[in-house]
Every structure is written in C-alpha cells, then in structure tokens.
C-alpha cells in the first residue's frame, strides 16, 4: 500500500484545465468559482489523474509487484467521483494492487486508489488496469 498527499494549487488546476481544453470559468477564474459556491477554482474530474500520481506511480513501480515497465500499457481506467476538489484542498490517496491475473499470455495488474480530502470526504475512487505483454 502506498499513500501520498497532494496539495491542490490554483495555478495547477488552471494549467490542467488549459491543457485539457476546458473553458468553464469555474476551473479558471476564482471569482466565477466563488460565485458558483466553490471556495476557489474547481478541478475538472480527470484532475484525479494528477493528484493520484504520487501514490499510484510508486505502487506500479514497486519492485515486489514486478511489472516490466517497458512492456506495460494502460489498458483501462475507471473513476468514480465524490466531493469536488478545489484549489487549497489537500488530497490523500492510498493505492494498492487489487488483482493480478493472466489471460491469453497477457498479465493484468489492477490497482485501486481511494482519495480523500482534508475533511475526510472521499473525492474519488480509481481502478487502474495495466497490461504487461
């Protein structure tokens, strides 16, 4: 099990929103976000990929799991979202290998992440399927 804390910064949310083509001012403009009831700019849902990275990265690279990184492809991804994430939040993510299987000569490694904010509310749960040829 790996665990990491990610501090959500306003400019990081804006950088992510620009890189992913978001034009909704709630992601980009603190005043618009506040007018919509958020404490600061709100992250797009797929920002989960960013705040999970410090936990899922080491989980995937764990030598005890033994994934050959050069032969790995990202096969599937699922996220389920809870409370919104806004700039200023501190998100704690716990990642672990949930399931390992072999089908047709391919090895499947399924990881789970659970991310919670500083108030203990779940912000997302992720299921990351990596396939090793």
């Amino acid at each position, binding site marked *: 099990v790996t665990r990491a804390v990610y501090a959500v910064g306003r400019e*990081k949310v804006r*950088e*992510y929103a*620009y*890189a*992913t*083509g*978001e034009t*909704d001012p*709630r*992601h980009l403009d603190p005043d618009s976000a506040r007018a*919509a009831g958020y404490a600061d700019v*709100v*992250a*797009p*849902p*797929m920002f989960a*990929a*960013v705040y999970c*990275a410090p936990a899922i990265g080491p989980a995937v690279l764990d030598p005890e799991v033994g994934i050959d990184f*050069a032969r790995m*492809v*990202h*096969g*599937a*991804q*699922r*996220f*389920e*979202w809870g409370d*919104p994430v806004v700039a200023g939040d501190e998100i704690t993510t716990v990642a672990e290998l949930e399931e390992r299987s072999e089908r047709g000569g391919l090895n499947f490694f399924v990881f789970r992440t659970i991310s919670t904010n500083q108030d203990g509310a779940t912000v997302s749960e992720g*299921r990351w399927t990596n396939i090793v040829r």
Partner: protein
Amino acid sequence: MDEHRSLSVTPDRYLTYRYAGASGDFNPIHLDDEFARSVGLPSRILHGLWTMSQVARAQTEAGGGPESLRSLEVQFRGMGLPEREITISSTVREERDGELVIRCDAEQDGKRIIRNGEAVVRPAGGA
C-alpha cells in the same frame, strides 16, 4: 440532453508537452519522436489519460459542469497521435433516478482509441 452527441478536438503539435507539464507524466513516448520510433511506435503518442479527459469533458459540457460527471470507465486501444482530429461520441443508453448512463468512445482516423466507455452523468438541471 440529446440522445447522441459528438465533440471534435484536434490536439495541436505541442499539446503533449503542455499535458506532460500539467500532469507530471514526462514519459518520452509522448515527447520525443525519435525515442517513440525506437520502441516501435509511429511517432510520439498522446497520453491516454488526456484522451480520457476529452471523453470526460464531452460529458461535463453537456451535463452542466464538473460535478455532473459521477463516474467514467474506459478501455484504451491503439494510440492517439497529435495533429489529427479526434471525435468523441456519446449515446444515452438509460435514465434512472435522475442519472444518465452514457456509452462513449473516441475515434481518430477511423480507429477507436477509446472504446466501451461508460459514463454516469447527473445533469445539473435534472435528467
């Protein structure tokens, strides 16, 4: 909300660099054509999670904001390339308790680079 929707987006030449900075994923298969070819790819490829973010954006733009998307599951197939149009298709399959179950995929050059996508959306103004 329409039963069928599509959203088109063409990742520009420098998109993978911006997404690498935004996400922290600097794997050279996304940044360096020469490296990508050395591992058997046609050129540098898009980040799968960027393409998934476009499938997500197609749902939140139709659903009325970031909190409308409750879950999203996708399968990645093949690879996406910069500077070629991607079309995200979304079809409402079911409505239950104010939530829509939406099938979605992403296609580029006639190939589905994301398939079997399923989103659950709770539209801001009701389903």
